[in-house]
């Protein structure tokens, strides 16, 4: 045996001992616990161990492209970046033992955007970039983690997760399928002057339910469907009549890159069965309800239509089970929380409308036009399956006496609607925020007065009320009155800085449960011991913050994500911050829905409380960072309103 071998051998024993210990340490944390032993040993063998005293900078933006992959062996690291609203810096995230950084910069081959500081005495393992890249290419576990763990890549990863769900379940179930892929065959079209007989012959030969009428440049002018044919036959139209006199003009169209979900929503909203695909003003495909129908077991379009045409409230109540099933299968197939809240809102709206129509049929039309308003989460289009009634009625009246008279006629109807909605799973509101309450069945002037009083007299009750009523939306009836009311409200609020300040104080009441030293701050005692509330502690800070900023800046949207986007557009919040808030909100909402789904499956009552210890390490971490975003939004409010 040569001396060199001896030396190598001697070294190897020691390497094995200390490397083994470090490997064991890393195996407690993702993604290392999922990595091959050989990959992990290779990683550790190539690591350096470095110490950073409290407050010492580990990496900063001016260091240039990141050279190392850092794993915290012991201690805490804070990400600091310049404060968006004031001088100094703010902590944007915290990294603790077993966690690693800076993934986005490392993968993006750029400098970090955030200064990383040792929040306490900290040891880090440093892996040179070249070795990281090599492992990244070889280890699936590391790659998945690196891509998933990076906040800015979260969206892409969500897509990957959905794609994976599709892979296992078969592509026919995905609502994310591009319409381009769905509309495989060439669209059937004809010229405007084509006689009816010719057009129907074409449809018959091609086995399609529609023909698109295009001009010489293939621009769609109209669509003729079997439904139109039925009408033409009933009307006794001549078979040689030109098709453009019988077609539906300016057909609804989407870009071929839109998703199956977009088409399903459009069909549900517009009561149409065909969507043209148009690119560069040229017809390039048609997607029919039948194409979408094959996508899902429980069909959204079909379900919406069934709800819309239900003949009895009992039928509507029974259909709620189908809604739950649809949401369930969508969640299982990787639909996002935004898609799902959008869908639930849509189906709930249909149910509400149908209940109102059926009640009108049964009790008789009161002879006064009225608008059915919804508030709170329903007003923000953010409903989950677990939902209360928050509604009211708006009508037009010339004076107080007339208003009282109309109210008298509408109230029995409203009370019956409330009662029937309750049978359809819309739980009666404990606070009696329902249209059947005489205080919530008001003329437009009365509503405006009521809203003004909320703004002028900022008592705790009024502040609470404003957080419910100011998220309002018309679901049934004329929408104009509701919009006028909203315009007045925005004027009131934007001119009243005292009220804004009170709203800001209110928005800071619910603190996100992130502690300085531990992961989460959970309830200490009682039945809720060791749990935190995803809705009140996680979502409410975003909802309250977005409402305040939107009202203060004249933004009429009610949906939290739409409000955030509008605020970014107006330059009220920075695009980066807006994206981070949106992502965090989205994640917490998703976690909440998955929780509801689990509870429904195991026949437990709905609850928004979650025990962070029951989450896997990665989900805990993403949840913690999401809460930290809520904290950042609050601290920006505190600065803005000098609280």
């Amino acid at each position, binding site marked *: 045996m040569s001396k060199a071998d001896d030396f190598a051998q001697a070294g190897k024993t020691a*390497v094995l*001992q200390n490397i083994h210990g470090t490997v064991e340490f890393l195996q407690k944390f993702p993604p290392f616990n999922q990595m091959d032993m050989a990959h992990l040993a290779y990683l550790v063998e190539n690591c350096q*161990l470095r110490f*950073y005293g409290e407050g010492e900078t580990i990496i900063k933006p001016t260091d240039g492209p990141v050279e190392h992959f850092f794993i915290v062996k012991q201690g805490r690291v804070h990400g600091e970046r310049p404060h968006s609203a004031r001088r100094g810096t703010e902590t944007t995230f915290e990294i603790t033992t077993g966690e690693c950084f800076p993934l986005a910069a490392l993968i993006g081959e750029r400098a970090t955007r955030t200064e990383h500081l040792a929040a306490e005495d900290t040891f880090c*393992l440093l892996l040179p970039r070249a070795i990281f890249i090599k492992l990244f290419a070889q280890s699936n576990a590391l790659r998945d983690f690196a891509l998933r763990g990076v906040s800015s890549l979260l969206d892409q990863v969500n897509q990957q997760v959905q794609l994976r769900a599709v892979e296992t379940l078969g592509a026919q179930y995905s609502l994310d399928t591009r319409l381009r892929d769905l509309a495989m065959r060439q669209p059937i079209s004809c010229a405007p002057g084509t006689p009816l007989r010719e057009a129907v012959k074409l449809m018959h030969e091609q086995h399609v339910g529609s023909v698109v009428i295009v001009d010489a440049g293939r621009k769609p002018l109209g669509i003729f469907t079997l439904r139109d044919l039925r009408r033409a036959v009933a009307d006794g139209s001549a078979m040689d009549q030109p098709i453009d006199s019988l077609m539906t003009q300016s057909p609804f169209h989407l870009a071929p890159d839109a998703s199956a979900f977009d088409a399903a929503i459009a069909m549900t909203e517009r009561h149409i069965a065909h969507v043209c695909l148009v690119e560069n003003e040229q017809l390039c495909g048609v997607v029919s309800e039948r194409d979408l129908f094959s996508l899902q077991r429980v069909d959204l379009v079909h379900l919406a239509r069934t709800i819309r045409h239900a003949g009895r409230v009992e039928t509507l109540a029974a259909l709620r089970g189908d809604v739950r099933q649809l949401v369930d299968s969508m969640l299982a197939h990787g639909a996002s929380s935004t898609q799902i809240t959008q869908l639930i809102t849509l189906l709930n709206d249909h149910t509400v409308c149908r209940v109102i129509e059926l009640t009108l049929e049964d009790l008789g039309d009161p002879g006064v036009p009225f608008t059915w308003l919804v508030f709170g989460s329903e007003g923000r289009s953010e409903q989950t399956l677990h939902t209360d009634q928050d509604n009211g009625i708006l009508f037009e009246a010339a004076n107080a006496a007339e208003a009282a008279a109309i109210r008298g006629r509408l109230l029995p109807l409203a009370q019956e609607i409330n009662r029937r909605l309750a049978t359809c799973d819309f739980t009666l509101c404990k606070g009696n925020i329902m249209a059947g309450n005489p205080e919530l069945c008001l003329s437009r002037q009365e509503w405006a007065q009521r809203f003004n009083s909320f703004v002028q007299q900022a008592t705790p009750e009024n502040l609470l009320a404003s957080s419910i009523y100011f998220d309002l939306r018309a679901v049934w009836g004329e929408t104009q009155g509701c919009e006028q009311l909203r315009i007045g409200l925005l004027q009131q609020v934007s001119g009243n800085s005292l009220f804004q300040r009170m709203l800001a104080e209110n928005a800071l009441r619910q603190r996100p449960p992130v502690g300085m030293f531990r992961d989460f701050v959970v309830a200490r005692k009682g039945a809720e011991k060791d749990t935190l509330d995803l809705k009140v502690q996680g979502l409410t800070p975003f909802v309250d913050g977005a409402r305040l900023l939107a009202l203060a800046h004249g933004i009429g949207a009610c949906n939290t994500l739409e409000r955030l986007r509008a605020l970014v557009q107006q330059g009220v919040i920075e695009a980066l911050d807006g994206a981070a808030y949106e992502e965090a909100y989205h994640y917490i909402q998703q976690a909440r829905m998955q929780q509801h789904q689990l509870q429904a499956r195991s026949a437990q009552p709905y609850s928004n409380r979650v025990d962070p210890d029951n989450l896997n390490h990665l989900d805990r971490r993403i949840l913690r960072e999401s809460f930290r975003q809520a904290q950042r939004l609050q601290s920006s409010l505190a600065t803005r309103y000098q609280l």
Partner: protein
Amino acid sequence: MSTFTWFSGRSPALTEQQIERRQQLAETSTLDERPLQQQRFVVLDLETTGLNMRRDQVLSIGAVVIDNGAIDLGQLFECTLQRDGHQASASTLIHGIAPSEIAKGEEPAEALLAFMEFVGDSPLLAFHAEFDQRMLARALKQSLGYRLQHGFFDVAEIAPLLCPKASPNLHGLDGWTQHFGLQVLQRHHASADALVTAELALILFSKARQQGIDSLPALQQQLNSRRRQRAHSI
């Protein structure tokens, strides 16, 4: 096939090759003026047959390198020395190296040559360095006929110097390890002890820099003046 060259008297028996390697060993230089963060150190831990510095023998050597302020996990040294007739003794219970493992170990001259080649001219660090220094020096003399002249720095002495606020009751590697919340992978295993001593050294170097003691000569000076003070107070 190796040719043996016999020396008279108590000098050890070494092969020509081994003598050549001994002569190649690096000369030690004077204390380097560069900042602590830019130097190479070898952090050492010995497991021995006992605590008697005249009679007991080195059983294993564990060492870790601090280079440019970082511990390189790919650059570690550990070696168990072959000791004929070694009996299980009280310290077997501490270091946990079974007599069978020692019988299997490296021939001492080979092991010590390999170690000194690994050390090069770097200064050495250890916890209670005096013990390691004397044990190593005696082993080198006996097995290689080599006189150890490397600078030794004692982490047990540097720690209270740089952490004056730490409790005076802090004792031993375990005490300081707990004080800084360090985790030892396997205590009383030479290389694991060397690693935790090296981690301790990294913390202390960071403190030294904060206190403006950022080179070996400066550190040496502080240690000397502390020794004088303590001698005075006694």
